């Protein structure tokens, strides 16, 4: 890796003190499909648009929302392949933690380790930053938690957040609709309404994905028929 002509780090500081590559990575995230997450009192919900490039694509083969551990799930905005690399590393780190301490990794620890990986790629030679922002949703002994991790490696805990194309509209909508005592079912409805706001075309269980985790601490992705039921309730 270190003997090519371009083995210097691409993320070198600009005179104004910015890391231009990271800014560009955030642009890549900003042009990705909208995704959002809401933390309720008894759980967390994450949702994303699932716009496929053509009607010929088999939508059952695509799943954007994935599990990192049985009680931690993740959704991304930006470059799908980049998210897969991070997902793989995070799953492995969660397993290593379990093997060492014989307890499930807490959400904050996993977020920290994922963020550390993303940061590594902004300070190494011959690599580029990841073109994804992740929303990590989990439920552990500290209750329900929602974290956003950016290409720079910085992470934030959110009560509700959105990323991707429609981020400003979605965040404004969430700011209006979010309440501290919201429960999981309300949060799911709010998430659907937020996605609907900027959705081009007809929203259905086939072109959005929703993942939830409740007090049972089992993260799961809703089936398209379950989403259709929720959509009917919202209408």
């Amino acid at each position: 890796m270190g003997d090519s002509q371009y083995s210097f780090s691409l993320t070198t500081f600009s005179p104004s003190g910015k890391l231009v590559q990271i800014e560009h990575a955030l642009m890549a995230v900003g042009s990705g499909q909208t995704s959002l997450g809401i933390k309720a009192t008894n759980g967390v919900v994450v949702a994303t648009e699932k716009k496929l490039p053509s009607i010929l694509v088999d939508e059952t083969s695509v799943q954007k929302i994935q599990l990192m551990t049985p009680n931690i799930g993740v959704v991304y905005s930006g470059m799908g392949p980049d998210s897969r690399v991070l997902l793989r590393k995070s799953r492995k780190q969660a397993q290593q933690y379990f093997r060492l301490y014989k307890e499930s990794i807490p959400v904050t620890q996993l977020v920290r380790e994922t963020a550390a990986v993303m940061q590594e790629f902004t300070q190494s030679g011959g690599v580029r930053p990841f073109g994804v922002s992740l929303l990590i949703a989990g439920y552990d002994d500290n209750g329900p938690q929602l974290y956003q991790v950016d290409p720079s490696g910085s992470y934030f805990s959110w009560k509700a957040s959105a990323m991707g194309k429609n981020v400003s509209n979605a965040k404004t909508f969430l700011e209006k609709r979010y309440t501290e005592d919201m429960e999981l079912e309300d949060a799911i409805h709010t998430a659907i309404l937020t996605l609907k706001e900027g959705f081009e075309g007809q929203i259905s269980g086939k072109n959005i994905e929703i993942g939830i985790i409740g007090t049972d601490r089992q993260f799961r992705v809703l089936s398209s028929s379950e989403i259709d039921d929720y959509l009917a309730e919202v209408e």
Partner: protein
Amino acid sequence: MVKMTDLPIKGGFSFDLCTRNQMLLEKGLQMPPFRKTGTTIVGLVFQDGVVLGADTRATEGPIVADKNCEKIHFMASNIYCCGAGTAADTEAVTDMVSSQLQLHRYATGRESRVVTALTLLKSHLFSYQGHVSAALILGGVDVTGPHLHTVYPHGSTDTLPFATMGSGSLAAMSVFESKYREGLTREEGIELVAEAICAGIFNDLGSGSNVDVCVITKGQTEYLRNYQLPNPRTYISSKGYSFVKGQTEVLSTKITPIQPKVETVGGDAMEE
């Protein structure tokens, strides 16, 4: 430092210290003993799945180190593994493969298969050339049906309808050879396994205490910890023991006063 690609893991035994160890042995060093499980473990296939059984005694030479240890290890919700040999080795290897199976499940989105666990175990054990002293009975039910395998420390495996391992394996096998038949029901399978383990418990010194059973069927696993307790403690005195002052003879007395605390007065503060 660039480390985004995982370097291939250099497995196998590192022989670097062998010359040193040989020299120490010649000088008269006693190697510390391994804690062996001196075990009876069994498994059989019945009509709906597999039943695994194990005793619960862990020995350190002639001493019982653990009267109620767990020898049936979790690999996946549909796969369990009994371990005989060195306790640390069986624990470590089953934990490691269990972790690898979890990662594999995430990558494939499917339930783990018994042959996957089998291949992971045998490749690991082979690369350590028998130095990882783990003799295992691996059993589970997956989409392809119920499976039962034995794994030996050097990495060879067998696929069998019924199997026994450990120091009590001969006692247990005698029970299986006379009473096993195909198409046993769940109750018959559990009874036979318990009988085989009891044969090991009573006839082998390395096995003892209780019987653990694990029943795996399609979609459901039941871990029956301490299914039978054929060796209860019966000698506890209900009155307890009393040790009266004066019962123990005093041979000699030596009193050493504890040093009084030395207080320093004055002096300068430390330079920064």
